[in-house]
């Protein structure tokens, strides 16, 4: 390299050397986890810049399993999961982890029949279809719930998610609560051993298969079903009412569970109480350490959480997530106030 080209390179490098400096003044919060709430979280991170321009978020939507692993290994500042951590997983974490509910999602049963009539299901019928015990659309038990719809003498093609997913977890968690046989034979998890059916990758894979194949029945996220105008079945809730899946009926599921909410929020909202509650709904959670390892970051994190469960709650509906009901927000407030740095609470009295 000649002397002159060396000088040129050095001169070019000087402005580059300056660039990282402003970024240092900002605080970068790293998070990882669930894919389901990714759209609302990125909306929040974008909106939050207006509230606190000093904080930037970097969220990797790698899946709930990955989020749990990363927060357990402390490689991120917060994790995110669609399913609550198990006791065993919590024990592995180096500190006490809090589950902070952020928004709610619901899972709907979608189908493809001639004319797509509005169908109604009860949990036990759905469980038996997914167990392979009800195989035809004109089965007497489906007919009994849908007397007005004309149901063809056609086999039911069950479609489920092939990828591990929080959506699957919510769906099978509901089936477990309704059907002891499902609980014993299949159980709950982000991936399960399906007794029957075809696997589609992602909501789009399931929806694509259902749309294409006459006689199929699958489950997708509420938001996905609404944006793609898929037929969605009404499902009978604990109170015996057939509830249409909507944002309001999803929020109602959390409201119904509010009075029996456990202190750690690790609660399943499926088949919850409340006359208006849609029975296949769930929280999605952010996972944060009770005792934060870094004071500055911890302070910013609790400020963000506080904002998310208050002002942030006006954003979910536009993105088709259900906001938290007011009584649950009160409970979460108390939880956020317990987050500390070396024993001292991080959130000043609000």
């Amino acid at each position: 390299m000649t002397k002159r080209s060396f000088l040129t390179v050095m001169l070019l490098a000087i402005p580059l050397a300056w660039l990282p400096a402003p970024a240092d003044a900002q605080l970068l919060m790293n998070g990882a986890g669930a894919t389901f709430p990714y759209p609302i979280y990125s909306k929040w991170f974008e909106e939050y810049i207006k509230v606190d321009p000093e904080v930037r978020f970097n969220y990797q939507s790698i899946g709930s399993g990955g989020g749990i692993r990363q927060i357990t290994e402390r490689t991120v500042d917060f994790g995110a999961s669609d399913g609550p951590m198990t006791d065993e997983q919590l024990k592995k974490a180096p500190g006490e982890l809090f589950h902070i509910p952020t928004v709610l999602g619901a899972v709907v049963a979608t189908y493809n029949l001639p004319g797509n009539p509005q169908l109604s299901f009860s949990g036990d019928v759905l469980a038996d279809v997914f167990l392979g015990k009800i195989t035809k659309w004109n089965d007497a038990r489906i007919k009994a719930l849908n007397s007005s719809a004309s149901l063809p003498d056609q086999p039911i093609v069950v479609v489920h998610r092939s990828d591990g997913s929080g959506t699957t977890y919510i769906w099978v968690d509901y089936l477990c609560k309704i059907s002891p046989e499902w609980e014993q034979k299949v159980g709950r998890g982000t991936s399960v051993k399906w007794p029957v059916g075809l696997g589609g990758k992602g909501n789009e894979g399931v929806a694509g298969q259902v749309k294409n194949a006459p006689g199929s029945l699958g489950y997708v996220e509420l938001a996905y079903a609404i944006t793609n105008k898929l037929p969605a079945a009404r499902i009978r809730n604990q109170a015996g009412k057939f509830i249409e899946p909507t944002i309001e009926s999803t929020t109602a599921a959390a409201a119904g569970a509010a009075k029996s909410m456990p202190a750690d929020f690790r609660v399943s909202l499926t088949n919850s109480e409340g006359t208006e509650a849609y029975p296949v709904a769930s929280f999605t959670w952010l996972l944060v350490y009770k005792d934060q390892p870094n004071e500055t970051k911890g302070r910013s994190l609790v400020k963000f959480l506080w904002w998310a469960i208050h002002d942030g709650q006006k954003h979910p509906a536009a993105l088709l997530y259900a906001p938290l009901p007011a009584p649950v927000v009160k409970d979460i407030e108390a939880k956020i106030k317990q987050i500390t740095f070396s024993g001292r609470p991080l959130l000043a009295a609000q």
Partner: protein
Amino acid sequence: MAAEAAAAAGAGTADGLSLPPRAISARRAGLADRVYTALVLASVWLVLLLAAGLVAALIWESWEAIRTFGFRFLVTSEWDPVAGEFGALPFIYGTLVSSALALLIAVPLSLGAAIFLAELAPSWIRPPISFLIEMLAAVPSVVYGLWGIFVLVPWLRDWVQPILGRTLGFLPLFQGPPYGIGMLAAGMILSIMVVPYITSVSREILLAVPGSQREAALGLGATRWEATRMAVLRYGRSGLIGAILLGLGRALGETMAVTMVIGNRPEIAASLFAPGYTMASVLANEFTEATSDLYVSALVEIGLLLLAVTVVVNGLARFLVWSVGGPARGGRE
């Protein structure tokens, strides 16, 4: 350090070239050669170390599953993440069958296209056709998958499978309800994806066959097909097997497009209409949400098995190349 040494070595030889050969001192030439040898040797070791490191990491990460299930992992069909029971047989079966099906469809098609391009096509038509076939290799696999879901699968379900079921339904291969999605769809998608690889490599091999081969055969009164079959294909067969191997490698490892159309059901079914599952697909599907250690470890073991299956299949094919015609003549091999 290595880069500086390389620059020095490069500069040394470049300077040397501009001078009369005797001006290069023996010492400098010796040094340059040693540096050159060391660098090349270092590259080969690095590649080998990377491969060894990959295998070691896979074994290390899958140790828990290997210890828990042992050999049973290879021969059982139970895949139940909730109960913690894992067996890889349906995935191994799915990978092998879908790839075999892909080759069954793609090999005659690709060889036909390659023969046309190398032997029969007028010269002005060769470049555009070759270009179009090679374009197929540039299509991202997720696009193939979407095309599979929205075009291929409905077509299979509404036309191909009912017809096959009616005419050849006495064979277990073509029984069962026509979902569209399943092993047949996966094999067909894969065949379309491997055609460009096999076609372009085969065409190059056929073009490399000396013209004297054809002339001799035609001179003896052979028809064009006889000349192609006896003089050209025989001459290039080891290279052609190499081309097919390249396609097979692609088919074994393909993930996205297969996942979207195979139905993702870990079961071994005789029918090609039934859904199946491949090793690459289960990794893509379940790795992100696998939470328990044993589950992750079982998935990593699937990755290890996929590597092993690829090595075994390639080894068998090498053996085939070796047994049909010894060392390379006119081809890649």
